[in-house]
């Protein structure tokens, strides 16, 4: 009996040592106490190697859980990750409102220009309403080109465009096989869609579709390469209703920018898309639109003016001007009170431009920080007709040959 007790004591001791050893193999918990929540999080125990998401979201302030959700105290990967919002991407539009929203974050008031999520939800980039309306019109499912359906059902009670709501587009309810096929084949581009396979299409969904150019990084300095994960990657063939990938060999920026048939000028492939195209064009203006053309308005003349008019400018006198906030997010220019910048026809500040004393203009690339000097059309030998002011008329003389 004594021998049995001795042996079983040995077994117990062994079990205890095993428990001790297993415990010592656990990682030492690393606590993070974000200022905003004041609640400890232990995510960095395993995720200490992630880069800071952005200068605007320092981890000491936001922590991880405010955006990602998840179980902040759990050190077991399955449990810790079980309640994360949107998997690894909390900015997926299905959860962006909870992850990125909130009145002091990105669902602030329209007056403060902090209603980012509301605008994105109604923008053509997420409704895909233009493509849907065009296809349904083309194949006889609707009699006009006005948007009636979108990727998701959405309403706009304070509509400026007359479109108060979009129903959800359901290809299985369509009788025309081409529209059905459109639903199956052509839904890889809107920003919440899972992208096509292939390195050149790699992007996240939701806000991160545009704003995340590298792993766990958010930026407003969005390079043209990010836009290219959807744009200029190929064409939809309406006869077969399939996406035809680009096959031409892309060797330099000039070729990456536009497809072979497109016409463009030098600034269009030297600058990044976001250097000219504004927030309301890209992220929506809060209204539902029937077409990309309804919302894209920046033209050559926005910066260059016409023969008879200089481009619109604005002298910054209000320290609360949104231009300062935008410049703060992408510190590529040292914008000061009293500076005169260009503004668009809709009054949006082109805050990375400046009017120089000699009457020319300067633009700093938001992503490249490159400096460009340019002149107004007025006073040049340009023979543009007064009623032909859209960019494609400029392309007739200024397009680059390839």
């Amino acid at each position, binding site marked *: *009996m004594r021998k049995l*007790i001795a042996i079983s*004591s040995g077994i117990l001791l062994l*079990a205890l040592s*095993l*428990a001790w050893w297993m*415990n010592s193999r656990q990682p030492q918990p690393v606590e993070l106490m974000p200022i905003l929540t004041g609640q400890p999080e232990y995510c960095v125990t395993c995720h200490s190697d992630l880069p800071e998401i952005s200068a605007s979201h320092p981890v000491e302030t936001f922590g991880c859980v405010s955006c990602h959700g998840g*179980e902040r105290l*759990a050190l077991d990967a399955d449990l810790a990750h079980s309640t994360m919002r949107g998997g690894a991407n909390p900015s997926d539009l299905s959860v962006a409102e909870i992850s990125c929203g909130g009145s002091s974050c990105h669902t602030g008031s329209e007056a403060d220009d902090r209603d980012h999520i509301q605008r994105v939800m109604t923008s053509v980039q997420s409704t895909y309403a233009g493509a849907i309306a065009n296809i349904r019109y083309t194949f006889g499912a609707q009699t006009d080109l006005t948007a009636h359906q979108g990727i998701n059902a959405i309403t706009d009670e304070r509509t400026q465009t007359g479109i108060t709501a979009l129903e959800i587009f359901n290809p299985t309810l369509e009788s025309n096989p081409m529209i059905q096929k459109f639903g199956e084949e052509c839904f890889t581009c809107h920003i919440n869609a899972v992208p096509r396979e292939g390195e050149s299409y790699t992007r996240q969904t939701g806000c991160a579709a545009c704003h995340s150019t590298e792993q766990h990084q958010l930026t407003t300095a969005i390079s043209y390469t990010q836009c290219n994960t959807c744009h200029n990657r190929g064409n939809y063939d309406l006869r077969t209703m399939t996406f035809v990938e680009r096959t031409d060999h892309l060797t330099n920026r000039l070729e990456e920018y536009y497809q072979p048939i497109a016409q463009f000028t030098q600034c269009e492939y030297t600058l990044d898309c976001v250097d000219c195209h504004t927030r309301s064009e890209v992220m929506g203006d809060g209204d539902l639109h029937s077409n990309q053309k309804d919302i894209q308005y920046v033209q050559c003349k926005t910066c260059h003016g016409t023969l008879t008019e200089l481009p619109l400018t604005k002298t910054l006198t209000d320290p609360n001007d949104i231009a300062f906030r935008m410049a703060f997010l992408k510190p590529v220019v040292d914008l000061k009170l009293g500076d005169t910048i260009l503004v668009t026809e809709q009054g949006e500040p082109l805050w990375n431009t400046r009017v120089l004393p000699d009457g020319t203009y300067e633009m700093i690339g938001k992503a490249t920080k490159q400096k460009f000097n340019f002149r107004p059309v007025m006073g040049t030998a340009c023979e543009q007709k007064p009623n032909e002011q859209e960019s494609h008329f400029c392309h007739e003389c200024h397009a680059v040959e390839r």
Partner: protein
Amino acid sequence: MRPSFFHHLHPPTIPTAQSRWRYTLGAGGTAIFLMLVLVITGALEMFYYIPTPAEAALSIQTITYLVPFGGLVRNIHFWSAQLLIVVSAVHLLRVVFTGAYIPPRRFNYLLGLALFLISIFLNFTGYILRWDTGIQWALVVGTNLIKTIPFFGNNLYTILIGGSEPGSPTLIRFYTWHVFGLMIISAILIGWHAFRVRRDGGIALPPPSLRADPNRISRFELVRRETLAMILTSAALIILSIFSPAPIAAPIRLSVLQSVPESAAAPWFFLWVQQMLKWGDPFLFGILVPVIILLILVLIPYIFPKTLESELGRWFPKSNRLAQITLAIITLLIIFFTILGSLPTS
């Protein structure tokens, strides 16, 4: 050797034949040891556990992942509780299959049955204290069963749940029952049960004239055997705790009725009830059948032919065959339904 306090808890000598493992299975003693482990590990958990809906599951995450050896303590608490159910059931089976419950041990049989029932309630209340999406389904379904009781079901529900749906009053009530109410009752009953074992003449055995083996072992030997059992049980608890941690799930963040449960399964010892609930009337299968089974268990010493004194002290005496068969059928059915209930539903 002078007997210590611990030795004095035992009779000076007991018959060799009835002190064998293969007769007692050591189940009753192991159950008391597991209770002791539960009290100690439970007391340790109480330093960190917060019985509010918002904090409960988070405090269990704290215990599990952040408190040094908290995970081990919680796992041991969990495994002790599960083993307690198994060991108590084995103890009950042993007592019936050896016919040991006849007078004067009839009352102690009832005390033991009450302890078994209480250990199930202790286990269920402890399970609910997790307050996470893993227990949510059982909480809702289990407590809704109470409502199906005619006449006083709704009142009983309100008394136990503390409102019209599970919420913070429910949690604090279950907590109080778990750490105080049921604990006090079981502490008293364990003392009473152990006292009655000795008052009723120790482990059931035939009268002196009919004993085949007149030898007896001393309390020193008995304590050594108990020590061995405790050491082996402890080792088993630790090994189970290392390789199979106690279940945990994401907290119930919305109200109990709004959150999405992680699993739609009862705790394992109620799987047989869950299986029967699939067949129809919740009152019939969820309340009445279990109560009838309990009633049969209560009546075993009263309605079935009594074990002959000469046949005491060994397994499967002929004289109480009917009681053995009855309990065997009930046990097999419960095991069968438990297996059915644990199969994934297709």
